[in-house]
């Protein structure tokens, strides 16, 4: 194959990566995008195989086959809930591959007795370093998520100092490697070993809840490692694809942090990743799950039936107009919205009627408890806005509770529940609400009006 054609085909692959990555950003095109980028990858592999006449090497074909089979099997058998650790593991493999390629190139030059140019030297060292950190870091992330090791942050004294020292040592050794005469190989191996240790140390102080950010970051690293390998073996598709992943990964990590209302630095060095759930620890040690506005927006934007459960908090937030707007929007997208009005929601008889009438919610949409309680199980989302006691399952089960015996709205029967309130404080009856700790429940903390307004903006952007 003429070199120009090869390069051109690589360019096509790179373009497919670009388009694929772009499409991955929207729910409607994501799947197609992933497939485009897959085609690009296939093209790059085929071109490489042809070009280097590699087809002859049986062992390579076998290796490819083994890798594919294992990868495919892992991907198919993993449970949906274990996706993040799966990605971590695969990412580690990618980092490992970069490490191996960089190492091979280094050893090849060493053995051939060639002194590589300074740029090749530097990029080789970078691909070793980054590849190793990615590999070991990803494995730790996997272990934390898989609960092979504790998900809690592991800290010890002087941790940052030690990490810094380690990093300095690696840089020093790598530099030394570049200037020492041939045949001195110990810095090479030491760099790899230290980098592997560094990867471990960087990830262990981060809590399990923050792992997705770390994985995304490590993914960015593995992109950069691939890019560095591209410099080493003078291959543009590696440079381009690696750089794409490198930068988009960092941006994605930042977006993820923003969604958690944290900074990237806080996630990486805060060493309190494990505390994130503290706000929602019940007395029995249960934790609540928080949801971001974007996430809630997707849930609501694609729901077929949404049942709104308004409570006193809706009135306090004066969010009646905002909820009406949200409902209109969902309906314009083809969903259905109903309001479940509990007889004692609010602080006076008919409180919710007064509010919703003000926002011109048609009376037909206001459903009495008896009328709607059976519909909850059909609902994709029960959207509980500033209500608490009226959806508290304790009324059904907990004989000691002051609200025992009060009929409640079956919000917990919905396929998923989003609860909007400002914090974890109790309602009028002053008791804790189990519903918030239900695995199906996601809490959207904040003033109800603000949350609703942001939701509207987000759904419009879907």
């Amino acid at each position, binding site marked *: 194959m003429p070199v120009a054609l090869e390069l051109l085909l690589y360019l096509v692959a*790179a373009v497919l*990566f670009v388009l*694929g990555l772009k499409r*991955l*950003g*929207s*729910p*409607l095109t*994501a799947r197609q995008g*992933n*497939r485009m*980028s897959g085609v*690009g990858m296939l093209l790059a592999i085929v071109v*490489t*195989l042809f070009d*280097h006449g*590699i087809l002859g090497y049986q062992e*390579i074909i076998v290796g490819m086959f*083994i890798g*594919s089979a*294992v*990868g*495919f099997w*892992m*991907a*198919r058998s993993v449970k*949906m809930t274990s*996706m993040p650790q*799966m*990605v971590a593991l*695969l990412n580690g*493999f990618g980092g*490992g*591959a970069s490490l*191996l390629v960089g190492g*091979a190139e280094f*050893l*090849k030059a060493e*053995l051939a007795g060639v002194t590589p140019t300074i*740029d090749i030297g530097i990029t080789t060292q970078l691909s070793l370093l980054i590849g190793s950190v990615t590999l070991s870091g990803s494995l730790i992330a996997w272990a934390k998520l898989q609960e092979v090791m504790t998900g809690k942050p592991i800290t010890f004294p002087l941790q940052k100092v030690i990490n810094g020292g380690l990093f300095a040592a690696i840089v020093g050794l790598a530099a030394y490697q570049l200037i020492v005469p041939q045949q001195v190989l110990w810095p090479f191996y030491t760099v790899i070993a230290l980098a592997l240790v560094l990867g471990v140390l960087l990830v262990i102080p981060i809590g399990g809840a923050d792992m*997705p950010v770390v994985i995304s970051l490590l993914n960015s690293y593995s992109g950069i*490692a691939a*890019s560095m390998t591209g410099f080493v073996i*003078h291959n*543009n598709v*590696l440079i*381009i*694809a*690696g750089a*794409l*992943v490198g*930068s988009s990964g960092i*941006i*994605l990590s930042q977006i*993820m942090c923003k*969604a958690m209302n944290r900074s990237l630095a806080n996630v990486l060095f805060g060493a309190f990743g494990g505390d994130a759930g503290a706000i929602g620890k019940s007395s029995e040690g249960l934790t609540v799950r928080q949801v971001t506005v*974007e*996430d809630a927006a997707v849930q609501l934007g694609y729901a077929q039936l949404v049942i709104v459960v308004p409570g006193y908090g809706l009135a306090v937030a004066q969010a009646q107009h905002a909820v009406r707007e949200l409902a209109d929007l969902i309906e314009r*997208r*083809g969903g259905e919205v109903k309001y479940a009005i509990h007889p004692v929601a609010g602080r006076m008889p008919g409180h919710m009627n007064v509010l919703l009438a003000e926002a011109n919610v048609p009376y037909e949409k206001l459903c009495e408890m008896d009328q709607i309680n059976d519909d909850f199980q059909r609902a994709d989302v029960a959207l509980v806005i500033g209500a608490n006691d009226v959806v508290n399952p304790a009324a059904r089960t907990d004989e000691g509770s002051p609200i025992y015996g009060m009929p409640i709205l079956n919000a917990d029967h919905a396929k998923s529940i989003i609860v909007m309130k400002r914090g974890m404080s109790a309602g009028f009856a002053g008791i804790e609400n189990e519903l918030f700790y239900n695995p199906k429940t996601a809490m959207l903390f904040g003033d109800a009006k603000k949350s609703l307004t942001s939701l509207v903006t987000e759904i419009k952007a879907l």
Partner: protein
Amino acid sequence: MEALVLSITLFVLATFLGVELIHRIPTTLHTPLMSGANAISGITIVGALVVAGGGFGWISWAFGVSAVVFAMMNVVGGYTVTDRMLEMFTKKPEAK
């Protein structure tokens, strides 16, 4: 040296492009997007193949072929897993 600068140029342009490509992503897509990007980073397979096919004796063997295995796992596993995650988005067509 000019070749290096050219490579750097490509690197810089691709970096900018990566930054610009990622915009307001709904949280539900964070994991699939991460996973999809991870699959792309499996491009190291090209490097692995080059090394494995380079014919440098044991280096090709030991380093190259294991790199190929690793990278292939990353590539195939990555794309498959992403596709599985994204299945759910094709269920309901958007009514507008």
